[in-house]
């Protein structure tokens, strides 16, 4: 099938890239149209994008990679800058995932956002968001990638703050934007260093040259890591992600699954060959810490979306850790599987919120799990999809998450064995990685029980079981993607997955098979342990009481997300506020005053100039005109309207002439 498209990859890639942008433009132009029209157009375009991306991906995976460039601009004779597309297997997989999730989100949003007064703007922004992410995926150099990277940040800012009349949404969108900027500073520095060291930022050349052992390349790697910390919510910049829940729920699905946080992992996979071993070690530690902190923070949340947000942070930590230890295949694999089950979880949560919202029960928050419970009786399909995705996230067998997490954990285990000379750090990384497995099982079970099991803890006014088809279809499709079916022939062996054969690094291929089987047993036991503990604790719902001792400390830490926000408030935010108030004082008392004096001086000067203009320059002009006027008046009066004066003049003239003549004649 893909043969007929052979050789047209560039065209296909550009089509995939531009259709979402077209969707954005159409949505912006057709603002006032009906929801039906807008939703159908956006969803159709999104579906077409997915189909083309699928064809392109098959081409790329089966066929060759494509690098095509055109000259963007030239500085002088030798320095030219090219832009183009860099299409390899990674691009292919990412294109499919991004467009598929975007399609599902469009489909789901058609019903979910129904009734919102800015329906068109919402779909337009979805298009812009997808466009930016696709740009990142097909960009062929770091600078172009950075441009789209910033676009992703910007469009996520717009979407998180979509309900801009809510102050908390505005705050969250600003927070996401600013935290991302901090990370992007590192990215910019990295681009500059690569330009200096390699003379180019093109991936095709950078990949050929590969890693170069120099101090500055190491710094550049850390800079890239900074960008990834911002975009993929790694410690210590993960604080924006939980707040980003203020956006509409399908947007959260898009951000968490496909478009935004995936960008960081994608970047790491792209530039993997350029990262020095030291940087990779830093990445590993950061990833492990993030995975653990996210998991801990997730265990005591009561907002249905916050649990998922923290679990995303935790899973992103896994992926970053996977890159760090060298298991790029595992990381990409987990990125893909995570996209499916996290999108499914978020959309299921969206369905739950949607249903809770219909109950006209405004006593409690629609997203508070304490007011839910027993929903499996009312939303059976959502329960099933949520359960499958949760199992996948917890890493139970037959699920895609099991395969991919196993691949990463195997890498981590092997890395720990290889780096046993690090001592404490190596053990810490492994402990955190495997501890997070237990916690993942724990918090997901807790969430499933709180939401779906037991009795409903709020008054229901509408017990309808029906969900719109547009909502259930994406859920079912995504839940299918959360099982092993799409990814592997053998549900127990990650190495049999086609994604692993495509992407696994030499490091991963060298891992002996017995480690695989051992790691998967450990992970499974830990996961089941977490599930069991959670089941014991939450089987019967009890209103939480303040407990004492270790549990209370953990609870406090979890509820407050390690007090990171407070720490940042006390340190950076306060310092910045102080600095800015100082700057403001300087501004008001020094600069403004100088400006004022300059202004006053100008006014005085202009008064003087104005006076001289009025009285000197104008005076000369007036004098000239009045002189001319006077002369004209005199000249006019000689032949004017007054006959008597006319006669008088004539007489005087005659007297003068006669006198003159007489004088002339009688003189002699």
């Amino acid at each position, binding site marked *: 099938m893909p043969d007929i498209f052979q050789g047209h990859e560039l065209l296909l890639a550009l089509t995939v890239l531009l259709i979402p942008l077209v969707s954005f433009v159409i949505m912006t132009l057709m603002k006032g149209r009906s929801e039906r029209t807008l939703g159908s157009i956006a969803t159709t375009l999104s579906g077409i994008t997915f189909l083309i991306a699928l064809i392109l991906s098959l081409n790329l995976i089966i066929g060759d990679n494509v690098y095509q460039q055109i000259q963007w601009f030239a500085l002088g004779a030798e320095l030219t800058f090219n832009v183009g597309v860099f299409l390899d297997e990674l691009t292919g997989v990412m294109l499919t995932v991004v467009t598929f999730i975007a399609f599902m989100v469009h489909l789901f949003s058609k019903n979910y956002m129904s009734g919102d007064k800015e329906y068109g703007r919402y779909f337009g922004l979805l298009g812009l968001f997808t466009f930016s992410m696709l740009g990142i995926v097909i960009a062929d150099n770091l600078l172009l990638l950075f441009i789209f990277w910033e676009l992703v940040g910007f469009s996520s800012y717009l979407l998180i703050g979509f309900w801009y009349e809510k102050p908390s949404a505005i705050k969250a969108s600003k927070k996401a934007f600013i935290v991302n900027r901090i990370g992007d500073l590192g990215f910019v520095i990295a681009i500059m260093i690569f330009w200096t060291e390699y003379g180019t930022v093109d991936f095709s050349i950078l990949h050929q040259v590969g890693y170069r052992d120099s101090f500055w390349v190491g710094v550049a790697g850390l800079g890239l890591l900074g960008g990834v910390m911002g975009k993929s919510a790694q410690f210590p910049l993960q604080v924006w992600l939980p707040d980003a829940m203020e956006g509409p729920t399908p947007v959260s699905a898009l951000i968490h699954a496909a478009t935004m946080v995936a960008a960081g992992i994608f970047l790491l996979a792209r530039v993997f060959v350029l990262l020095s071993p030291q940087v990779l070690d830093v990445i590993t530690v950061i990833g492990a810490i993030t995975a653990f902190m996210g998991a801990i923070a997730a265990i005591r949340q009561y907002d249905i979306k916050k649990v998922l947000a923290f679990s995303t942070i935790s899973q992103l930590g896994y992926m970053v850790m996977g890159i760090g230890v060298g298991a790029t295949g595992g990381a990409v694999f987990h990125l893909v599987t995570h996209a499916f089950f996290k999108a499914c979880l978020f959309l299921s949560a969206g369905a739950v919120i949607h249903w809770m919202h219909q109950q006209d029960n405004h006593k409690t928050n629609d997203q508070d799990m304490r007011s839910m419970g027993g929903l499996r009786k009312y939303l059976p399909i959502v329960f099933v999809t949520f359960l499958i995705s949760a199992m996948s996230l917890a890493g139970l067998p037959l699920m895609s998450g099991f395969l991919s997490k196993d691949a990463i954990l195997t890498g981590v285990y092997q890395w720990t064995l290889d780096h046993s000379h690090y001592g404490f750090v190596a053990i810490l990384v492994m402990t955190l990685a495997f501890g997070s497995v237990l916690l993942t099982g724990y918090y997901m079970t807790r969430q499933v029980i709180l939401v779906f099991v037991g009795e409903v803890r709020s008054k229901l006014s509408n017990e309808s079981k029906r969900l719109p088809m547009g909502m259930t279809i994406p859920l079912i499709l995504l839940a299918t993607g959360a099982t092993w079916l799409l990814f592997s022939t053998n549900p127990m062996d990650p190495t049999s997955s086609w994604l692993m054969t495509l992407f696994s690094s030499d490091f991963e291929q060298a891992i002996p098979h017995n480690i695989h089987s051992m790691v998967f047993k450990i992970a499974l036991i830990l996961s089941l342990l977490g599930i069991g503990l959670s089941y014991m604790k939450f089987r019967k719902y009890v209103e939480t009481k303040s407990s004492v001792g270790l549990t209370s400390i953990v609870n406090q830490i979890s509820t407050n997300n390690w007090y990171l926000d407070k720490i940042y408030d006390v340190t950076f935010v306060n310092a910045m506020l102080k600095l800015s108030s100082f700057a403001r004082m300087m501004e008001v008392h020094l600069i403004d005053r100088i400006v004022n004096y300059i202004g006053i001086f100008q006014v005085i000067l202009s008064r003087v100039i104005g006076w001289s203009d009025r009285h000197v320059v104008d005076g000369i002009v007036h004098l000239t005109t009045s002189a001319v006027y006077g002369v004209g008046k005199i000249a006019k009066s000689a032949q004017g309207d*007054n006959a008597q*004066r006319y*006669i008088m003049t004539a*007489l005087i003239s005659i007297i003068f002439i006669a006198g003159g003549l007489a004088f002339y004649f009688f003189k002699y």
Partner: protein
Amino acid sequence: MIPIEHFLILAGFLFLIGFVIVITKKNAIMVLIGIELMLNGANLNLISFSASDPNIGGQMFALFVILIAAAEAAVALAIILNVYKYYRTSNVDEINQIKP
């Protein structure tokens, strides 16, 4: 015999008085009267010189002037009458435009 200078002085006076009337009086009829005085001054002058002239060309000329003056007075009075009808005034200062 009265010397000719006396006549000439009287004629000059008459002419001057007429002239002053012409340039000072605002009423058009008074201006006309001034013109008559000037004509008579000129006539007197003609006749004075004619007295010592064997031909009577000067006297003949004076008769012509009187005749023309009579015709002129008639025409001028008619004009003044029409102007007065049109402008409702005979003040020469106010009659300063030709257009209707």
